[in-house]
């Protein structure tokens, strides 16, 4: 993925990605996978912020 030169534009398909995550509901660690979210017919909101312990 480090080869990607240009960021995505609205209207384009988002390549699948998988990331580690913390799930506050279960208070457990896990993975978040766009492929699995799509398979579950979920809408996805990605919400970036500069860093933890900053305001959101």
């Amino acid at each position, binding site marked *: 993925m480090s080869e990607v030169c240009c960021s995505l534009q609205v209207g384009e398909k988002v390549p699948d990605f998988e990331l580690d995550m913390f799930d*506050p509901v279960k208070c457990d660690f896990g993975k978040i996978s766009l492929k699995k979210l799509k398979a579950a017919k979920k809408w996805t909101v990605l919400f970036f912020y500069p860093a933890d312990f900053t305001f959101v």
Partner: protein
Amino acid sequence: MSRDTKFVHLAWQRDERALANVRYPMASDVTGDVARMFGVLDEEAGLTLRGTFIISPEGTLLNAEVNFFNLGRNIDELLRKVRANKHLAAHPSEGVPAQWKKSGDVTLKPGPKLVGRVAEAMKRK
């Protein structure tokens, strides 16, 4: 999501009272690869800009909003966009105008009859 690890996410969520009701997964983009894909990685600072992206169940990127580090986002507007996307997925021939807030509010049907008649269409109930 940010470049912090899942361990720091846990510590932050536990420590910050404003996050007590967070119900969504806090993703850890340690390498910044996903941020880079969406164009929100500030390579010099190593931090991610305040970017918000809505992806359909088919995997299409439908909305993008990016603020600089010092400006927070309006969550009512984010929720409006999510509702609008769901409405449009079910009613693909319609357009959702700026004033639209929820299903049942006036939408627009682009076509010859709408040309030059948006004001009249917006008054329709």
